[in-house]
């Protein structure tokens, strides 16, 4: 790898790691509580 590739690498990974970890933690923290008997289905408001 060239010096520029390595420099970009060293900039990109800390930013990417921070952004993704923050996103995952927030997604876990904010996820709604489970509803009883919940199943995956096509959202009703979209059914043609």
């Amino acid at each position, binding site marked *: 790898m060239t010096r520029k590739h390595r420099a970009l690498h060293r900039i990109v990974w800390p930013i990417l790691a921070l952004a*993704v970890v923050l996103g995952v933690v927030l997604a876990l923290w904010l996820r709604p509580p489970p509803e009883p008997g919940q199943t995956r289905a096509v959202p009703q408001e979209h059914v043609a």
Partner: protein
Amino acid sequence: MSVGLRAVQWNRDKLVYDGILVVCVALYLAGYLLIAWRSEPPKALPDAIDLWIRATGSCAFLMLTVILSIGPLARLDRRFLRLLYNRRHFGVLTFLVALVHFGFLLDWYVVQNALPNFAAELVKWPDYAKFIGFPFKVLGLAALLILFLLASTSHDFWLMFLTPRVWKFLHMALYGAYGLVVLHVALGHMQDERSPLVPLFLIAGFGTVALLHLLAGWRERKADHAVAPTGRWLTVGPPAAIPDKGARIVAIPGGERIAVFRDGNQIAAVTNLCAHQNGPLGEGRIIDGCITCPWHGYQYRLADGCAPPPFTEKLATFRVRLERGLIEVDPTPLPPGTPAAIVVA
């Protein structure tokens, strides 16, 4: 080494590599489906398709995790170089698995006569302002698009056409695709699925990759510190400090690295960048009198940096001299293929 254009340059090693990959993917999918089917048998066709969506999606995520770990692992431990050799085929297979995942998603809508809903989900603009409820499928689609771009330009033709420098920058987009995939799962499947396995799988996968890249980057940083120049020459050290049939890498102040090789009493300096994919030549060995790149085995003569016939690749060489028992390198590159090796007593 390459001569002429061929669709795919197969050899025994690549066939074995690809064979193992295909078998591993098949075993993973079979294992996932078997366990999921037994623990919760699907009640209807959409449920069965949903299992395939999850099996192929998790498989693609796992494959991306492994692919992105290979690079830093090979920097940290040479034993992983064997995995790097055919990483591009690994990437193409990952794109195909991700494409099948997308195909099953479309099928899931089709069997419920609800395909227009998929498009409706993508253009439900108010959802883009939400965090929970964000159209996570868009993130997956964006990642799939990047994977398509990378898979379609993975051939050596594109490497030569774009130049290794540009090609490498383009293929760094894989990092972004991986981030999109993680958020696609976090805002999608992880919101429905209450099993702690999903966040664990996600965090362990991404955490491992990020940690390996940060660690490899931190270790690489030290090697970029330039050696103290003596006038315009860089001091490498005594000839014995260069491993026989190996190299010592020195950095030009503010420039690229130089690999100083020794083969017995013959010493030569070439750019550390392989002409193929900018692989780190200085981490390679001299095999059959030729500098051999540790990534894909491209070879160059020690004497002049030229690939042996019929191959045509050439490396920039550097003048070397023995001064007061120390090997020194002139950091000004000579035109590629210029003979510059010296013999020391």
